[in-house]
């Protein structure tokens, strides 16, 4: 099978995602999973296991200036 159409995507993934994937790997989702998961896993290395994504929204509010939390909406 010819995977030459995926060459530009290989470059893109390398630069933007730091994922070194061959055209064959891109064409095979099962192999893609491994490479993506490894990259994210390395990025997460050393971090505590976190809660669900909703914690992020709450944290934004928690870090806001105190005077905005007590004031009324304009």
């Amino acid at each position: 099978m010819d995977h030459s159409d995926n060459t530009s995507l290989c470059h893109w993934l390398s630069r933007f995602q730091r994922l070194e994937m061959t055209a064959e790997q891109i064409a095979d989702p099962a192999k893609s999973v491994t490479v993506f998961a490894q990259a994210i896993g390395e990025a997460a290395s050393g971090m505590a296991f976190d809660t669900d994504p909703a914690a992020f929204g709450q944290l934004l509010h928690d870090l806001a200036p105190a005077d905005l939390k007590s004031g009324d909406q304009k």
Partner: protein
Amino acid sequence: MSKSIPLMTLVDVAKQIADGHLSSLEVTEACLQRIEDLAPKLKCIADIDPDAARDQARKADDKRAKSGATGPLHGVPLAHKDMYYRKGRISGCGSKIRADFVSDHTSSALTRLDDAGALDIARLNMVEFALGVTGHNDVMPTPRNPWNTEHFTGGSSSGSGASVAARLVYAALGSDTGGSIRLPAACCGLVGMKPTLGRVSRYGAMPLSHSLDTVGPLTRTVGDNALVLQTIAGEDKKDPTTSALAVADYTGQIDIGVKGLRIGVPNRHFYDGIDAGVETLVRASLDTYAAAGAEIVAIDIPESIAATNIMTSLITAVEGSTLHYEWLRDRYDDYGAQTRTRFSMGLMTPATVYHQALSMRAKILQDFAKAVFDKADILHTPMITMPIPKYSKSDSVGDQAFLDLITRFGQCTRPINYLGLPGLNVPCGFTDNGLPCSFQLVGRPFDEKTLYRAGYAYERENNWVNMVPEV
């Protein structure tokens, strides 16, 4: 007189109209003339109906004569990125696919501007579906930088940047998912605010990435920007992701200066690979702050900042490709090459990995906030670490040099989107190629007020905002 009207700031022209020294029609005619003269060269206008613009202006003048100005933007001509829906009007989104799309509702941001009395006189060109940092568009006209038409406008709010910088309109809305307000503001020498995630309603704005998208203004001055954000910020029942936190008074104490303000300077990531000329200008702005009484403090940025690049790209690709799934299946050839390549990347990403990227967000923000805001009130960084490149470098997909270029192009913006923080672009001079150079101010969540205060303090110490490009 008419030639000088478009050169006024938004704050000044709004006051002149409110006081009756200028009519909205006079101002609008002056802008229409400038649009007629310059827009064909700049390719920044997607659509304009001059007669409809005049009608809006006449109604604004009639209204003011009868009952006074309706709001702080009464009668001021604005135009916006072509992704803000207005009922019954086309919103093309910089695409072939939506070239004929007519919305059945109006975006909340436009509604708030309408309520403040602003005119909406044109739709502005943009990067296809807001996915791209250079300004290049494969399928629709690519706007040109008024400072030099061969160079990037920055994207994706490319037409917004070009139009405001060329003094065609007084302000424009952009959207920012990975830098799309701040980058065109930086390339075109404007002030651009990416607000905190949830500060401005996204109802009726074309979505790209629900976890990252923000709505904000591009303007000529910090004061203009604060006025527009003041108008559009705040909770919106139509967008449940907006915050119920109170909106600060952005304009009231904007001029109190920076004496005692702690300004952080990062030791990691933001200065990586920076051009020497850019670094000189950016660091000179720190000298200005120090001279004005600010305290400059070194900040040890957590190493996890490096991960935010991959996270932002991944989240954008996954959420964008989900939204575009049916079109990618049925109309693949109607996308430009750069757009469909990035969306294709999202189609391949496993759900578990995407969810992990979102889950890590709180921890990375917590570490970043502790490192920065325990020591400083705001963080000061470069915005773009290189002189603004030429468009000739932006028309490919897989070329290694191009990919290196745009990786660096968003290195200071993408982390701020991932962290959900507010970021303000402030012009600070010109590099040797004659194109603008800027720095970025980053604040704690929902503290846009302090960014405006600091941006204003810098702006009044120099003359950058009064420099007008000769198109």
